[in-house]
């Protein structure tokens, strides 16, 4: 397996809604084994960029996927963890139902085979929520639900993982657990990850590179240099005083 080979190539992507241009001339690449963070103000088009990769919105331009040996993938498997699931919290859908809805064509209310249950348990164990396999998804805490969705996104093993502000409903302890799972998965699977986050601290800590978006790509760079960037500081209104960052 070659290191740092291009996984997703976005070329001259444009998205319009009516006469309003949401994204314009976006050209970006995400590499295997790397976490690319999309940062920018609210309404800058970060989520729309993820939606374009998912083909959830109409767009102009090209989005190509490649496997780790550089071969183009026509129908890539995409793992996606949404910011939040807006579903009925009283819904009786269990974690197991969610997994079976994807892995089988037999309606989930017919029951689940032992083999599928073991497989789902295996996936859930990786993210540490296996004891909730029979719990309704509405009864899980924010952090537990996001970890279930992460395990769900990783099944079957995706060619790329998209995370849309995945920890906005997760408490502080849950956040570090969530990201450490992502990091170990990325290393194990050598998987490219595209992360939308509004929290620069998380980006510096957990991402490899960043792209500052404001309807187009303003700047790209190494995540460790993020806070030194003038454009990033201007966008987020960060004051740097003797190395101490103050968020406005």
């Amino acid at each position: 397996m070659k290191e740092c080979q291009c996984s997703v190539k976005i070329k001259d992507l444009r998205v319009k809604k009516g006469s309003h241009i949401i994204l314009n001339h976006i050209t970006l690449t995400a590499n295997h084994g790397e976490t690319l963070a999309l940062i920018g103000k609210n309404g800058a088009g970060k989520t729309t960029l993820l939606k374009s990769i998912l083909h959830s919105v109409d767009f102009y331009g090209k989005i190509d996927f490649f496997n780790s040996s550089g071969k183009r993938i026509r129908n890539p498997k995409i793992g996606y963890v949404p910011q939040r699931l807006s579903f009925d919290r009283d819904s009786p859908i269990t974690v197991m139902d969610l997994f079976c809805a994807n892995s089988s064509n037999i309606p989930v209310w017919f029951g689940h085979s032992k083999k599928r249950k073991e497989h789902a348990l295996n996936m859930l164990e990786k993210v540490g929520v296996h004891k909730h396999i029979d719990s309704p998804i509405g009864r899980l805490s924010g952090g537990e639900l996001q970890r279930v969705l992460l395990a769900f996104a990783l099944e079957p093993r995706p060619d790329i993982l998209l995370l849309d502000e995945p920890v906005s409903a997760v408490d502080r302890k849950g956040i570090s657990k969530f990201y450490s799972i992502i990091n170990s998965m990325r290393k194990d699977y050598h998987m490219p990850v595209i992360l939308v986050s509004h929290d620069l601290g998380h980006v510096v800590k957990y991402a490899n590179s960043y792209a500052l978006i404001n309807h187009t790509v303003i700047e790209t760079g190494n995540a460790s240099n993020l806070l030194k960037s003038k454009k990033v500081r201007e966008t987020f209104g960060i004051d740097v005083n003797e190395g101490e960052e103050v968020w406005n």
Partner: protein
Amino acid sequence: MELIYSAMETMLPFSWVEFTFMKNAFLAVLLITPLFGLVGTMIVNNKMSFFSDALGHCALTGIALGVALKINNPSISMIVFSVIFALGISAIMQSETSSSDTVIGVFSSAGIALGVFILSFSGGFSRYSSYLVGDILSITKNEILMLALILILVTIIWVISFNKLLLSGLNTDMALSKQVNVKFYKNIFAVLISVIVTVSLKWVGMLMINSLLVLPAASAKNIVTNMRMYHIMSVIFSLFSGISGLILSYYIGTSAGSTIVLVSALIFFATFFINRCRNIS
């Protein structure tokens, strides 16, 4: 059919079985209600009860067009027109140009208005009033056979599509990431609901049909914790209220449709309080 009739007479030793219209109505209830219970779970889960209501209202326009154009087979033309309307609403909702709330509101009232307008064109709307309140006792032998055929077909498509419908309802983008053709399945959902509503509208009535779709599933949701029990209980509640409502209406002398809906509503309130008591304790 004669075989089924005589089987019913032997198995059900009640006075109402003597009447053919009651036997037909009973068979129709046995056909319609389990499917309503089954499909209702998805409607309740995806918070789409007003969507199905609007589809019911548009089915009236579909039926009206079928009647007005005097096409050879009115049932088929009704279904075709209702399906076209259902796809229309579904497309407008998915285009996200207006909020789904508004789209549903517009179609809901325009559907009834257009239906009543066409049916009353020659001045004789009263002939069609059964479409509003339903008349399950008027169902004939041939209509039951047609109903059975269509409902079996709908059930098969529903079962095959269920998991994809479930994922599409949870989160569109997540379903897309799992390579589910969300647009296609949302249309399938609209079409199936509209077909069920159209073929049952004459016997259940437009004003009450949505209650039959929503109440059994809503009652089941009050007391279950997994999808399997959700579906089993919803079908049981639907079947129970259908049968008991029909028989009660015979003895009390009330409209069958309204009695069935009232039994469903009573079950809903009972399960609602059971759920509340459980949560408090």
